[in-house]
C-alpha cells in the first residue's frame, strides 16, 4: 500500500510538472521570426571602419548613419540596389567593397520580408520647415557624389519649392514614380513629413 502511494505521488507530481512546464507545446507561435533591421542589417550597413557611408559628411557617399543615428530612409531608398548587389551584382560605388556570404543572406532575407524597420515609427507635428526638418533629411539621405549634390541636381530650398509637383508625385507613390533618377522606396515617415511640409506651404 505504501509503495502504491509513493508511486502515485511521483506520477501525480510529474503530471503536474509537465502540465505547468515551459514546454507549452500545443500553443502556436505568435509570429514567424523576422530579420531585424536594427540587430541584423544595421551592423552590416555601418560596418567597415573607413566606410564612406557613416562619416556624417555626405561628400563621398550617401550616408547610412552617423554616430548612433541610423538613416533608415537612406537605406530603404536603396533596396533595389542592394537587392541587385546581393543577387550577383556588385557594390554600386565599385571598389573592393563586398558583403560576406552571411551578410548577403541577411540582406536578401530582410528585403524578402519587406525591408521593414523594427526601430519604431515617427511623429510629425508642429510647423515643418525646410531648415529644421527637410534639409537634414535631404543631407543625410539624398546627397552623395553619385546622387544629389554630386552627379544629380543639388536641391536647395528654392529648387525644392519649384519641384513641388515632383515631390508630390514622389510622395503619392512612396518614391515609386516621379523621381527623375532610379525608383525609390520612401518610408512612411518621409512621406508623412514631406506631405505635411507641402501642406503647410513649404515654409523655409
Amino acid at each position, binding site marked *: 500500500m505504501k509503495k*502504491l502511494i509513493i508511486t502515485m505521488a511521483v506520477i501525480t507530481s510529474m503530471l503536474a510538472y509537465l502540465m505547468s512546464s515551459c514546454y507549452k507545446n500545443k500553443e*502556436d507561435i505568435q509570429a514567424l521570426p523576422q530579420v531585424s533591421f536594427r*540587430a541584423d542589417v544595421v551592423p552590416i550597413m555601418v560596418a567597415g571602419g*573607413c566606410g564612406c*557611408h557613416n562619416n556624417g559628411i555626405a561628400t*563621398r*557617399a550617401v550616408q547610412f548613419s552617423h554616430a548612433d543615428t541610423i538613416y533608415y530612409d537612406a537605406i530603404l531608398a536603396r533596396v533595389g540596389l542592394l537587392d541587385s548587389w546581393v543577387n550577383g551584382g556588385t557594390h554600386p560605388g565599385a*571598389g*573592393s567593397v563586398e558583403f560576406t556570404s552571411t551578410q548577403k543572406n541577411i540582406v536578401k532575407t530582410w528585403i524578402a520580408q519587406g525591408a521593414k524597420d523594427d526601430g519604431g515609427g515617427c511623429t510629425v507635428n508642429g510647423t515643418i520647415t525646410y531648415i529644421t526638418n527637410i534639409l537634414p533629411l535631404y543631407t543625410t539621405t539624398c546627397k552623395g557624389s553619385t546622387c544629389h549634390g554630386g552627379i544629380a541636381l543639388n536641391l536647395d530650398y528654392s529648387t525644392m519649392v519649384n519641384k513641388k509637383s515632383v515631390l508630390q508625385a514622389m510622395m503619392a507613390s512612396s518614391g515609386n514614380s516621379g523621381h527623375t533618377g532610379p525608383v525609390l522606396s520612401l518610408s512612411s515617415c518621409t512621406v508623412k513629413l514631406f506631405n505635411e511640409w507641402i501642406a503647410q506651404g513649404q515654409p523655409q
Partner: protein
Amino acid sequence: MKKIPLMYAITVFLTVMLMSASLLQCTKEGDIIKNLDRSYTGSSDSAVYSSFYEENTVATADVVPDVNDVIKFRSVQTIVHEYCATSNCHGGPIAPKFDSYTDIMKYVTAGNPDGSKLWEYITTNNFNNAMPPVNSNHELTITDKSIIYNWIKNGAKERPDLNDFRPAAVQLIASGCGSANCHNQATATGGWARAGLLGPLTTADTSQYIYINPITGAQTNYCQLSNPAKLNTVWTAYKDSVKKFYADVIANASFRPWKKFSSPRSAASTRGPLNSYDDIIIDIMYPKSIRSSGSVQYTDPITTYTYYVNSNFLNATSTLISRIDSTLLLANPSTGVYATSPQADMAYGDGGLKSHEIALIKAWYFADPNIPTVWKYGNANAGIFKYIKTGKIIKQ
C-alpha cells in the same frame, strides 16, 4: 472475472494519462508554426569574426589594456546565455547548464557544426527537439546562428587566434577602405592608364563621377579606370615593380616604380589600394609614403623622368597601425626616432574605425607571420610602437 484492486487501477489510469499528456504535449501545431523554417541557409564564412567570449585582449596590449586593445564583438557565450541559459531554463532550474566553455563544449564537436548537438538544437525543423522551444517565440537570428556556425566550424576554440583574426581584419580593411573613391585600384592606376601603359581607352573602360562641393559649389569631374581586367593589369605590374625594386634597389634599379598619377607629373599622390590581402601586405611592407614620397627622390639622367620612390623602405613615419591607433606612437624603423604625436587619421577622419575594430586589426597584425618582424618590433627587437599612456614599447 478477476478483481482489480482500486489503487492499482488508479495507478494504471494515471500512468496512461501521463503518457498521453506527454505525447500530446509534444505535438507542435498551429497556422503560423507550420511555416516556420529554422534551418540555416548560410555557409561557412570565415570573415565572420566568431569568438566564444565577448571580449578578448590583444596580446600586445598596454600594461592596463587601452581603449584599442580589447576586441569586443557579440559572442557565442552571450548568445547561449541570452537564448538558453536564462534564469527560468538552463541558467536556472533546468539541466543541463549552459554557462561555461566546458558546459557548452559537451554539445559541440569542434570543426563540425552538423555533428554538434548545439547546432542541431538551434536549427532543427523537428520542432519536438528544437531549442529554444519554438513556442517560446525566441528563435535565434541569422546573425547569431552565423556566429555559432562559424565558431564551431573554425574549431570552437576558447580564445581566438590568427585564423580568426586574419579573415575578419582583411574583410574589414578591404571592404571598409576599398570603395571606389578611396583605397581602390581605380584611384591609383587611373593615372598610369592615362599615361599610356594600357594604350587607348574607351568610355566603356572608365566611369565618370562629378562632385559638387556643397559649400563652395565648385565642380570636380573624376574619371576613373573601371575595367577590372585593365585595372588588374596595371596594378599587378606596379606591385611587381615594387617587389623587384625593393628586393635589391641597386641590382633592380630599372624596376624603380615610376609614379605618374596625373598629367603633368606631380608629387601629389593618390591613396594606396587596399583591395586584397596582398595589397594590404604590400602597403605594410612598403608604405605608400615610401613608394610615393612627397619630393623627388631620383631623376633619370637620360629620360629625365623624376621618381618619387624612396629606396629605403624603412625610412617611414607612417604605417597602417600608426594610421589607425591613436594610443600608439610610431618610431621610424630606420632611424628609431619616435613621433611626438599620434596619427590615427584613418580611425577618425574618414568614417572611423571603432575601437574594437582597431583591436581586431592589431591582433591580426602582430600575429601574422607574413608581416615582417621589422614592421612589428623594429630592427633587433628595438620596438617601433610605443603606448602613449605608459611608454610601454611593444616587443617580441
